[in-house]
């Protein structure tokens, strides 16, 4: 899913690879890219399940507006993954409901 080369944007510049976990599974991404981008590149599309109907949600607006992509990051629920920069060692987890289970 990564665009290493692009007809207009050219070759992607070198970025530092970091390791993070998604639901305990080790993954890699680039430091500073949105968490949602790292997940997308790794093929993860379900970010959370809603409180009442347990229906899946993913990235919708990608600019921090809609809050559909929120997840539990480092134990903290409701983090907008589309605007949160990825850090080395981050623990990213699927959020259930409003994140009550995170505690």
């Amino acid at each position, binding site marked *: 899913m990564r665009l290493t080369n692009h*007809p207009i944007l050219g070759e*992607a510049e070198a970025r530092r690879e970091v390791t993070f976990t998604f639901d305990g599974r080790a993954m890699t991404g680039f430091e500073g890219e949105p968490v949602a*981008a790292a997940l997308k590149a790794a093929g993860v599309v*379900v970010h959370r399940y809603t409180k009442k109907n347990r229906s899946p949600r993913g990235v919708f607006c990608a600019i921090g507006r809609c809050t559909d992509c929120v997840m539990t990051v480092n134990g903290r629920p409701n983090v907008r993954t589309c605007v949160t920069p990825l850090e080395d060692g981050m623990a990213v987890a699927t959020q259930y409901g409003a994140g009550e289970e995170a505690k």
Partner: protein
Amino acid sequence: MTRYDVIVVGAGPAGLSAAAEAAAAGARVAVFDENAKPGGQLFKQIHKFFGAKEHKAKIRGVNIGAELLAEAEGLGVTVFLNAPVMGLYKDREVLVRHADAVRRYKGDAVVVATGASENMLTFPGWTLPGVTGAGAAQTMMNINRVKPGHRVLMLGSGNVGLVVGFQLLQAGCELAAVVDAAPRVGGYGVHAAKLARTGVPFYLSHTVVRAEGTDRVTGVVVGQVDDTWNVIPGTEKRFDVDTICIAVGLSSSTQLLKMAGCALRDDGAGWLPVCADDGETSMARVYAAGDVSGIEEASSAMIEGRIAGAAAVRKLGFVTEEALAVRMAELESALESLRGGMFAPGRRGKIPDKTDEGLPISASLLSRGYLDDAEVDQYPGVKKTAGIRPVIECTQNIPCNPCRDACPKGCIKVEGGIVSLPVYDEKAGCAGCGLCVAACSGQSIFLVDDDTGGGAAEVTIPYEFLPLPGEGERGVALSRSGAALCPAEVVGVKQSPAYDKTALVTFRVPQEFAMKARFWRKEAVV
């Protein structure tokens, strides 16, 4: 509380332009933006802009963004990032949330340039992962450099849908179709034609019936609508897609203006601030500029920003009334020329039958996304002359003229305003340099040589995809509708800094296809 002469909310095209304009007059300017990076949506616009030189036409949005940011910073503008503005109060007090604290600021003038957000469309399955805004797809591929999906359906044929659709192809995604409930393509015909010639089908008068999938989108069903917008049973079609992009318009982000108490008006599609010509709202020295004051293009947002910035510094006494009048005349005429043509804001929804020149507007272009082969000859950019010549398939009055400035021979005329159709002046003598092909933001200019000997003709097309074909490579020539016409060998591939990443690919076809072949595709490996 920290005081600034001018506080700008939003570091997008309008905000940065307002800041630069005010700072150039000597004002102390601060810009607050909630994002980690400045530029708003400008850095994801990787296509060449329309307009004239004064609107930075034929420059890609991403490069305009870099230029604008450098200008603002060079003039001493302070840009605060990760700094959402939480409130705008009486006497222009601005409350900002920084990482460490919430701080109060005071602006002698405030320019609100908060932009817009994408409209949504609800249908069964619309909340599934894989249904995204078209802008979201653009952010993913052009900023984050991750493909939004493998196979995508675009809902909406306005300029956003068409431009993002093309960018999806550039990112290597497949575009299954462009679907719009309206009976006509909503955006520029040239943008539609770019997609159609690669083989993307248009389904006008169609809407989405449902998205399929349990945990993610695995398909989509669309159907034809009747004149009451209901799906006609039996017309449903299914597409295998993993992504559905929604491009059904934008709504101005007026929340901050509303909380401040600025008067708003209902323009039929949403609430907009009541503004004077210079952008001043009902609150003294509070200005609105860019999409927040009405949805238009980034090019107009930049001028509106400059108008608001100029008006603000005049109010604060940084420039004289005379100096302001001169600058305003300049800016207003630039804005006026962008607002002309058949897609002008005032004309929204009303498509004329004829161009300003009295030529028919192609019904095929509006309903299928491409010109009918038989219609092409009637436009003034298309003339049959011997030897190499430009064929300008620009058939709608849109504000754009870089083709005229590109031609070193003066072959192309755009006279009587920038919305006029370009005219090919055969007497000037085309040298075949291809600068017009690369300069056309709508990619609607081709070079054609009807007779290169042995019954062959050569067609040169703008090409912005990877991989670039090589000379001698064999492929297939496609028609305006994307149908395979005939085998075609690539005989030239030109790249140049002057073309700005648009390659020129020349391929050879039998003569009868010279005026039909408009795209080249590598032969599928069997």
